């Protein structure tokens, strides 16, 4: 087991954003997290990434308890993440952005630079190596974030809506990139709204609603689950869909 999150809860004041969420990820999987807005996906994601500590529960990564570990420690242990709203280092060049990531495993400038250039080539940003990050549009920024975190050589990659806001063509390119990353042996957990992405990429999905996980399984099965349809579309739809089902 690469990642095991058990009974993870998080409250903000009296508001319970996440209640008793469970997630087990085996090495080499691609797991999707879906759910309507405000379902607790991002809170769960941030707990797993070490950005906010859970109020209760236990998260174990590769045999190490990381429940209360800092975000920096998560990165060191091999959990990488991207941000929903890209958080690239605007004034720095693309190469320098990626080098910040590469310095985690390569302390010498020359080694970090070489590793960063490899990742830049792999993610298809080579033509823009020296350009400042602020010159990129949204798709470029999302790609740069992926390049930057790949440079930290993660075992587990957490993608937070890395494909949102892209055009259909860009989505296809991004899906291909995620596949190539997976083929390198990186385990992936992806939060995504776009069903097409989840259905093509994920082997297993976990559905969140109102702070709890309401279903999990193969994507095709989950999208037909009455509880999931109800969460997304309301009760009446679930009944209608149920009535038409063979």
């Amino acid at each position, binding site marked *: 087991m690469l990642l095991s999150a058990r009974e993870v809860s998080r409250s903000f004041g009296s508001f319970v954003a996440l209640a008793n969420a469970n997630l087990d990820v085996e090495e080499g999987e691609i797991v999707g997290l879906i759910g309507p807005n405000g379902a607790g996906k991002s809170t769960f994601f941030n707990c797993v990434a070490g950005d906010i500590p859970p109020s209760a529960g236990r998260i174990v990564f590769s045999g190490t308890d990381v429940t209360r570990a800092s975000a920096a420690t998560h990165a060191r242990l091999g959990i990488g993440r991207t941000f929903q709203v890209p958080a690239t*280092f605007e*004034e720095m060049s693309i190469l320098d952005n990626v080098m910040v990531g590469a*310095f985690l495993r390569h*302390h010498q400038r020359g080694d970090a630079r070489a590793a960063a250039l490899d990742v830049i080539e792999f993610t298809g940003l080579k033509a823009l190596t020296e350009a400042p990050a602020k010159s990129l549009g949204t798709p470029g920024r999302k790609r740069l974030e992926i390049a930057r975190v790949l440079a*930290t050589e993660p075992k587990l990659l957490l993608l937070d809506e890395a494909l949102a806001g892209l055009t259909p063509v860009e989505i296809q390119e991004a899906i291909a990139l995620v596949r190539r990353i997976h083929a390198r042996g990186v385990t992936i957990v992806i939060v995504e709204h776009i069903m097409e992405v989840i259905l093509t990429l994920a082997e297993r999905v976990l559905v969140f609603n109102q702070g709890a996980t309401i279903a999990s399984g193969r994507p095709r099965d989950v999208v037909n689950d009455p509880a999931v349809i109800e969460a997304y579309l309301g009760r009446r739809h679930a009944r209608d869909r149920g009535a038409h089902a063979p």
Partner: protein
Amino acid sequence: MRWLGIVIGAAFLLYPWLVTDDFYARTGADVLLAAIGASAWNILGGYAGQISVGHAMFFGIGAYLPLLAYSHMGLPPVAGVPLAIVISLGFAIVVGLPTFRLHGHYFSMATIAVAELVRIVIGNWDFVGAATGLMGPAVSRTWLDLSFRSPIPYYYLFLAVLAGLLLLTWHLQRSRMGYYWRAIRAGERPARSLGVRVARYKLYALLLSAAFTSLAGSLYSLMVGFIDPESGFGILRSVEMIIIAALGGAGTLFGPLLGAVLLIPLQTVTNSLFGGGGSGLTYIIYGGIIVVLARFEPGGLLDLWRRASQWWSRRRETVTVRHAA
């Protein structure tokens, strides 16, 4: 570009021999001293993006300790320099640990508060001369007193220190440390997500910055031979470092030096034109520079220069392309 650097370097080396009057050589030494202070501030405020407005406290500690060593123990002032650095480092840790939890303006305001507190304590403490301050040796007893009539020895001492500081900064900005500082300035949350231990790297920047600011203060009192609470710990000290660095370009290697070359002669002129009232004018000039920089050129003059030369080379390219076609 390379020979431009050589010409500028040679100009700095030969400057005292190119001017005939001690007044100009003294101004040159003032420029270098201000460049040391601003470059020291630049490590924390420029590269790591933590805008301290309290660096006068390190400058003041640096300035007081040599004259304390002289007036209380009769030691050559220079003996107080290492102790000043140690005390500044201690202050940096005590001040840094709580204030680094604050972000943006709150951090800046906290540093002002601490520095002002220190200034008031010093101004009421008889051991350090209270409001009247401290004097250095009037006449040099041995060469170790580093008390020279001519400004030229100070000029070269400052030039050597500045060269060392800039060499160290250059090395750091290319290293892991420099990259982590810039990442912290650009965004602490993403920096953390890439494994950067933010608190630790901020503290490294503060320690280095404090040590060299303290050294700048020591060099000041070695040259001037006099220090009082206002000239050591006054908020104008902190503001001067910030303005000089920001004018040339904060977070760039040569920005603070450029800022000092422009601002210090200007200040010297206004001070000599208006006498004691000149310091009021200094405030006005500083205020004006802050407004103009914040509104039009937050990157400072080096950034303006970089963009101008980019624009120029693009223009030349298009012209060439047009000719080729």
